[in-house]
């Protein structure tokens, strides 16, 4: 019986890496990649527990997450292109219209 702990630990590390990336990086593309990392951390966690508990629902949920992430990436890239067109930059610091 393979233990689940290493997978959960790896998942936690990936999630924290992604989280830090989302919070501190200024480049929109890097933020998007970090976000992707967080998704996959979650997927890993889901699959690990699915395997450990013998319940396929977790794996199906992971596949859903991958699907939705693909859509999310498309929207995210679209936003990047819009930002580039408006401001000629990919820096998130420049996207500050809400700040008066």
């Amino acid at each position, binding site marked *: 019986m393979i233990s689940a702990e290493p997978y959960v630990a790896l998942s936690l590390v990936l999630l924290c890496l992604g989280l830090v990336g*989302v*919070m*501190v990086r200024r480049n929109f593309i890097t933020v998007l990649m970090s976000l992707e990392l967080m998704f996959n951390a979650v997927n890993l966690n889901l699959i690990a527990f699915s395997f450990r508990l013998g319940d396929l629902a977790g794996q199906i949920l992971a596949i859903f997450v991958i699907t939705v992430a693909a859509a999310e990436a498309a929207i995210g890239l679209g936003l990047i292109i819009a930002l580039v067109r408006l401001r000629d930059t990919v820096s*998130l*610091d420049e*996207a*500050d219209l*809400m*700040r008066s």
Partner: protein
Amino acid sequence: MTFYDLIWLVPVFPLIGAAFNGLVSNRLGLPKTVTHTVALLGAGAAWLWGWAAVVQWMLTEDTHRPYVVEVFSWIQGGELAIYGGRVVPLEVAASFQIDALSAVMLGFVTFVGFLIHLYSVGYMHSESDRAYARFFSYLNLFMFAMLTLVTGSNLPVLFVGWEGVGLCSYLLIGFYFEKDWCAAAGMKAFIVNRIGDFGFLLAIFFAFFYFGTLEFAGLHEAMAAHHGVPAAAATIIGVLLFVGAMGKSAQIPLYVWLPDAMAGPTPVSALIHAATMVTAGVYMVARCNFFYQLSPTAMLTVAVVGGATAVFSATIGLVQNDIKKVLAYSTVSQLGYMFLAAGVGAYIAAIFHVVTHAFFKACLFLGSGSVIHACGGEQDMRKMGGLRKHMPTTFWTFVAATVAIAGIPPLAGFVSKDMILAKAFEAGLTDLNGYGTVYFLLWGLGLAGAALTAFYMFRLVYMTFFGSFRGGEEAEHHLHESPWTMTLPLQVLAVLSIVGGLLIGFPGQLFHLEGWSLIERFMAPVVLGHGEHGHHAVSFALEWGLVVVSVAAAVAGILVARRFYRLDPSFAKPRALAERFPFAYRLLLNKYWVDELYDATVISGTVKGSRLLWEVDARVVDGAVNGAAHSTVGSSFLSGVFDLKVVDGGVNLVARIYDVASRAFRRLQVGYAQGYAMVMVFGAAVLLGVFYLIKL
């Protein structure tokens, strides 16, 4: 179908002529021949049809009853509550009637009217084509109105004619409207007439209120039966009707317009302001005699005003120098005689004098027109004289009419005027209505007036036709007799002035030939109660005595005039007389300053009153309106301030509250997506921590 069934055609013929000349001929400026042919056809058709209708009616119908022809239903005013609580429908038909009175009026109005149309053809020939058409259009329109007046069978139809003649009078007095004084004379006539018309209108209203009908026949019957109507009704209606007659027939105090009306062309003065229109008042009083017969007060009013006017205006006529002015005051005076007759109950004598007066006064006016025409528009008698040689036809016709008006037997004026004076004396003798003394006095006034009439008329003749011409050589060169269209009417009217009186009103009582007076027999059914006390109160000898007295008065007047103006070409005697009594002379010359008196009282009073009302309007009414505006401006200013400070202030205060309250929270809204993400993460961490602690 008979002529008298279509009696309404009589006024319609001249109306067609008026419409053609007014609407077509005047617009297009058609030649004079067309214009006067149409006008003469209109007046001539009315004359022939009118006479045919009268003759046929006399031969086929009962002349004791009016023959009424209803043309169409005119006024339908619904039901009205009248005196005594009765409810009657107000229905007036446009209906015409023919009876003895209408027949007499119709007979001479159409005839004299036609003659004056004929005369105008010659007199107006120097006008422009369009003015000529305008003149004949008015003249025909006048005929229409006058014939409506004398044939109408109820008060409203009579009133239509009454107003129509007033309108035409105004239009024709102001015919030369480019001259200010002519236009002013027209307006004066119209306004003074309106004052009288107001009384007439009130009389019509009262007549309907008391009797519920406006038909003459119905009113006559109601008054004859005199049931259920207060005695005062007859007095009220009679006096108000007479107020109307005062205006139209130029009696004191409303006579002032007639002398000024001489501003119109002379044929107009003859037709309207001497022969026909001004006698409308006499006609109306005679027509409504049933009111007067039952009201001694109304009768006395008519007699006193008439007698006073007869003498009053005769005295003014003594000193006037304008030939037409003399005739105008003479007309006013003669109208006074007619009312004196009506006031003593001698309505037939009044109408008789209307007819004879129409003959000789029309002749005099047309003669004066012929004189003025020859003198190139000059009307001042001091610049005439000796015209006898130059205008023989005008001269003899004028003299015939003058002798007639002076009251020399057996000419027309004598017969009718003597009848009036005899009736006035008889009224005094029989103590009519208990006012015998007043009637004696009025007879005396009438006699004095007769002497004055003879004097001023012969003064006019001597100054105009005798002596030598005083208008300068060049004017004398132009003197000429008038064309036949002018002299023919003169001759016809002069013949009628001579024989007309005896013809229609032979004074049979003077020769024990009672009933020889055609007009008296003919018109008897028109007068209420006539014949009930038909016996003559005046004895045969007294009758002759009265004739002698009145003829003596006339002859005296003529002799004085002859002494003053014929035998002495320098007029030294009258001048000396005027210098001896300067005040009396100036009083008469200035017509008793009546015009000035009216100017100072009525006219300036009206002007001042209007000014006062204008001030009230400007100050009070406008002030109120402006005050309302000012108060609106003020209150809107206040509400504006309230809106700005209080309402807007409240709204701004709310905004400010939010502004201040949100100041702390605004700091959180940094606008960085990553900042929000950080807050989310720490928040989630805190929540996890809390859950963890709680689980423990």
